[in-house]
């Protein structure tokens, strides 16, 4: 009977653990959303931050986050596609390839603060880009590349080799076969990975503190010439992002309503993550259905 009782006790404990986790995680989300959402108004989302007085917004930080995200993805998506294609289609099984894989694995496991410091050293100082959007985007690329590359490689590897044979037997190059047949078929997986990567980039702060900088100079939203100093598109201006902003106002402690602003900004970040997550799922499924389902014009 001892065994039976043991079984019961264990089951109860497991239920308790699962319950506790759900409780902790749910209260975490609830806390952020309940604390933060009331602050999230149109005014909050569009006005610039204020340093020594209350009532500031996160407008510029929000714009910076998105601009940085777009730039980082524009650089890292093609690079990761190229690297992923090489690994999955061209790399021979030898020591060099396994060395490359090890290097990518190491890069993906490096602490983001180390990647950020490297970016500071190279992009900010060596290349003289300064604390800027460009430095930030490049460091986010470094941060993002290994995971995107692995995702591309895995997505491609999941497509049957019969498809590759089909293309090759028609006298097509492997490059054409991969880019025009295999990549489109692997698109659901690739897209999901890219969107999740975008979510990770959106919330990253440690890598950006010393690359994109911790200041958000006022922007002139009427002048979109990228070479104008206050232009939102100028890639060489410093750009504090939303995540960095949360960190900074909490560490500095000079903003009187720092807690309220952080809560609002955190809520915005979490909602963004949620949107990224859900859209990754939706896109993945939608693309998959579109490609395998009948009744629609071919891809």
């Amino acid at each position: 009977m001892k065994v039976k009782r043991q079984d019961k006790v264990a089951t109860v404990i497991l239920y308790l653990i699962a319950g506790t986790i759900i409780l902790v995680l749910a209260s975490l989300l609830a806390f952020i959303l309940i604390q933060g959402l009331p602050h999230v108004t149109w005014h909050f989302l569009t006005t610039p931050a204020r340093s020594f007085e209350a009532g500031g917004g996160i407008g510029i930080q929000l714009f910076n986050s998105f601009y940085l995200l777009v730039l980082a993805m524009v650089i890292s998506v093609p690079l990761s596609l190229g690297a992923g294609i090489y690994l999955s289609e061209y790399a021979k099984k030898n020591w060099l390839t396994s060395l490359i894989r090890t290097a990518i694995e190491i890069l993906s496991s490096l602490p983001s603060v180390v990647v950020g410091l490297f970016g500071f050293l190279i992009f900010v100082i060596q290349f003289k880009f300064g604390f800027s959007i460009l430095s930030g985007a490049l460091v986010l690329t470094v941060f993002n590349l290994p995971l995107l590359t692995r995702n591309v490689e895995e997505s491609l590897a999941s497509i049957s080799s019969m498809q590759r044979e089909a293309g090759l037997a028609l006298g097509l190059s492997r490059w054409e076969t991969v880019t025009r047949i295999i990549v489109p078929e692997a698109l659901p997986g690739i897209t999901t990975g890219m969107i999740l990567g975008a979510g990770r980039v959106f919330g990253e702060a440690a890598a950006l503190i010393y690359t994109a900088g911790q200041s958000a100079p006022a922007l002139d939203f009427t002048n979109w010439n990228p070479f104008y100093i206050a232009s939102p598109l100028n890639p060489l201006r410093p750009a504090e992002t939303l995540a960095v902003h949360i960190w900074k106002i909490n560490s500095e402690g000079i903003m009187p309503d720092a807690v309220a602003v952080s809560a609002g900004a955190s809520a915005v970040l979490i909602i963004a993550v949620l949107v990224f997550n859900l859209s990754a799922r939706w896109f993945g499924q939608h693309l998959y259905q579109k490609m395998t389902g009948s009744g629609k014009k071919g891809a």
Partner: protein
Amino acid sequence: MDPIRESLLKKSHQAKLERRGRLLGLFCISLIVVVVAAIFYFVASRGLATFYHDKINLWDFLTKQAWNPGTKDSHGIPEVGALPMIVGSFLVTIFAALVATPFAIGAAIFMTEISPRRGMQILKPVTELLVGIPSVVYGFIGLTVVVPVIRYLFGGTGFGILAGTFVLFVMILPTVTSMSVDALRAVPRHYREASLALGATRWQTIYKVVLRSSLPGLLTAIVFGMARAFGEALAVQMVIGNAALLPHNLVSPASTLTSILTMGIGNTIMGSLENNALWSLALILLLMSLVFNLLIRLIGRKGALKP
């Protein structure tokens, strides 16, 4: 002449495309490898300058407790003892892993063995969502909820190892959980069936069969979580207090490698001893991430030997 025969001897459009495509891919992959090499080279050359250029004794660096790179001690040697940060980093990492492990594995067992339907419907999406939550958000919650609670319960400032542990625990929990789920799922169904058919209870089956055979996977999940905890910078930095002192207890202000690094690197001058010492901390971080990587590989290899 036979045109087909001729065409076989010329480079086709496809052959050119193939060459270009392969080169393009090779370029991308080389770029990544070069970046990895550059990271190692630059961090190492900066980090080692403390020892080569500033003549700091490596052993002193690792074991001394005083961290004031700007000032010199009675022998005229700058005070760069990194022990407090090293201890701080290891303490929060180990504690976070110790707390997170039972929760993560328990939740994973719940999701795979006890109630797969409910587990998959509620627990899995929630953990997946939480994996993506930015670390500053965890730091902010730590600062506004955890630190005050600790202050209320234990007195003092509330900042310290305990607060850091708690924040990291919540942070790595989703990652470790979802990796544990994968490990448990990889155990073949017939293992469980065979055990149950022999009259074992569900718990005996879980404990003696499922957990044992998924041990390498579970260990990998834990080490992975530890690697994340060790390298996490901002969330910890916000709650640990950032005092470069050996922690007296779990609720006194302390520091980690990452927290001192994020605080200090902007306030020091490139090439100065203060700055080089910080890069040495970064080098330790880099090497530790290699160690974690190696551990995961070793576990994988050991695990692969089993049937």
